[in-house]
């Protein structure tokens, strides 16, 4: 079985991570930001799976963690979207720059 080298996979996940980060920092729309966070999480997932497969194939820790993160991400998305909906109800906007009350 021809194998894809680990570095390639890491390259993909790194790219994914920075795309997510770029989205997180540049977008003002909260939904988009949430999506960017999901991208970051997924890049981590890829890393976990890849390291598990290439370095410790006899163990399942990485996969285990991946599933854990997916679960958390789902819950997180639910909470985040609930917050966003509430924000929209009160602020009539889901622009992150409009929600800056939480400061000193």
């Amino acid at each position, binding site marked *: 079985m021809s194998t894809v080298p680990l570095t390639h996979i890491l390259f993909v996940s790194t790219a994914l991570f920075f795309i997510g980060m770029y989205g997180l*920092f540049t977008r003002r729309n909260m939904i988009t*930001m949430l999506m960017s966070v999901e991208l970051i999480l997924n890049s981590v997932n890829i890393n976990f799976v890849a390291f598990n497969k290439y370095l410790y194939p006899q163990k399942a820790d990485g996969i285990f963690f991946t599933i854990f993160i997916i679960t958390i991400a789902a819950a997180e998305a639910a909470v985040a979207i609930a917050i966003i909906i509430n924000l929209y109800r009160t602020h009539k906007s889901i622009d*992150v720059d409009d929600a*800056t009350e939480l*400061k000193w």
Partner: protein
Amino acid sequence: MKERVRLMNYQQYLLPVLLLPLACFLLLGLFGKKHLKNASGVIGTASMFAVTIISVLVAGRYFFADGKVDGVYQHLIAYKYNWLAFSPTLSIDMGAIVDPISMMMIVVVSFISLMVHIFSLGYMKGEERFTTYYAYLSLFTFSMLGLVLSSNIFQMYIFWELVGVSSFLLIGFYYNKPSAVVASKKAFMVTRFADFGFLIGILVLSFYGGTLDFNALIQRLTAPQSGEFVSITTASFLGISMLTWGLCLVFVGGAGKSAMFPLHIWLPDAMEGPTPVSALIHAATMVVAGVYLVARLFPVFAIDVPALQIVTWVGAISALVAAIIACTQTDIKRVLAYSTMSQIGYMMFALGISRYGGENGLGYTASLFHLFTHAFFKSLLFLGAGVIIHFVHSNDLKDMGGLRKLMPVTHIAFLVACLAIAGVPPFAGFFSKEEILTASFHSNKIIYAIALFTAVLTAFYMFRLYFSIFWRKEATVHGTHNADGTASMKIPLIVLMICSVGAGLVPITKMVTSDGVPLETHMDVLFSLVPIVLVLFAIFFAARMYKKENGSAGKMAVAFGSFYKAATKKFYVDEIYLFITRKVIFNLIGRPAAWIDRNIIDAFVNGVAATTARISGLIKGLQSGKVQTYALYFFSGIAGLAVLFIYLWK
């Protein structure tokens, strides 16, 4: 065994003497207002009557039956209860000392108090706070009896403070009157200041003496071989031995209570209180507490000449200054107040010139003799003044005159008292003054001169008072025929009048002496002739000036010029005090302290808070509320840590 039986008997008598007035105070103070409104005066008087009877019985027994052992009066301790133990050696014991001076004093105190109780029944009738008045009187009597019976120097200090506070309460009895409030505060503060000296004196004496008990203290500090005596005389501060320091500080307390110059300023103002109170507290009993204190510690004073000299000079100056001021005052009670101060000065310097034991102790005996007689005629003068004020409704001499026909009883009583205080034989004051003059003649000629001059002045200002009140002009007030007051006011006057005549015949010289051995005195007719002639001359002079209004008094005043003016203004002592307290202490200590507290110390605390707030103001911008900024911090933090762990953490 016989000794013990005797002591137990004294306890049996002396405890009620103390506890009856206390019980009376508690009863009237707690329940009087509601339930005993009208009966309070009678209750107070009745209990006082019982106290007087017991006191006289006890004193009589001590002096005439069992006080003497081998011809010497003993210092007995009737009872002693440990009240507060500071350390194994130093403790405040509540006890009662039975010796000549304490026995003499309980008679004087309870008797005068009884007279004042009776007098007040009429004088204070209808007062809104009648019950409170009697409660305070009982409190005072309790404290004063406790003071004279004290067997422990700290016990004396306790009662010393208590008489001070009862005096405060009674001076401020008319609490609505601002002048009364000011006077009561002044009396308390000045005596408090003096008590501060007393307290330090107690600390000094007790530290070296190792005891607070009077008998033990005197015994240790007068025995030249004792370790305590050696340590207190060798220890010194500013070149003065600790013994002198201790005694002088104690004397400061005495001087404050007894209104000695320059701590006398409270006494004239204290006349704001009801007049019977002035008779009791500020004439006969409390103000002589200072004399009593020095007499109580006399054996110790007697071995320390510097301290005695201070006592002498303070007494002599007070006697003279007060007599001069008394000549110029126009408020009847103030004249009496200054005369009190002058007479106490007399007693004080008589103690000062005295030495311990035998003939040398004549001054001591004379002083206490004078204390004894003075109590009667001075309280009589005050009560008489009370009747007059009650009738005229004014304290000022110019509102009086020609009252002799309206109030015959008061007139005679006042005249007798004036003759007594002037020292005209055979009235009481003559005998005691005579002995003081004799004692001073034999010890210090300057003091003798001052004493003689003061005696002349005394006669002059007392008769100035007498003629101004009862003669001078026709009575301007035509009141009811009952000018002498009710029976309850007349009876004390008459009783005290009799005492003022007869008290000089009481053989105090045989009973109260410095060493307990009866003293034989002999009257030297030629010697006593000088003061008598001078005094009579002074009376004659006063009669010339004041019996009729003829302007000679005014001419005299002009002749003395600024000296007269200074004397009217009481030599500006009050002003000096006001300057020191208001200007110096308030402005230089009080105000700065309050200012520093708010503007430096508290400002520092607030400054810490303000600095914290400012720093937080500088960095709070970091928390902008923008999620993306936070995310940026977060990732840069992670990146920083990553660099740290990967590259630098080797």
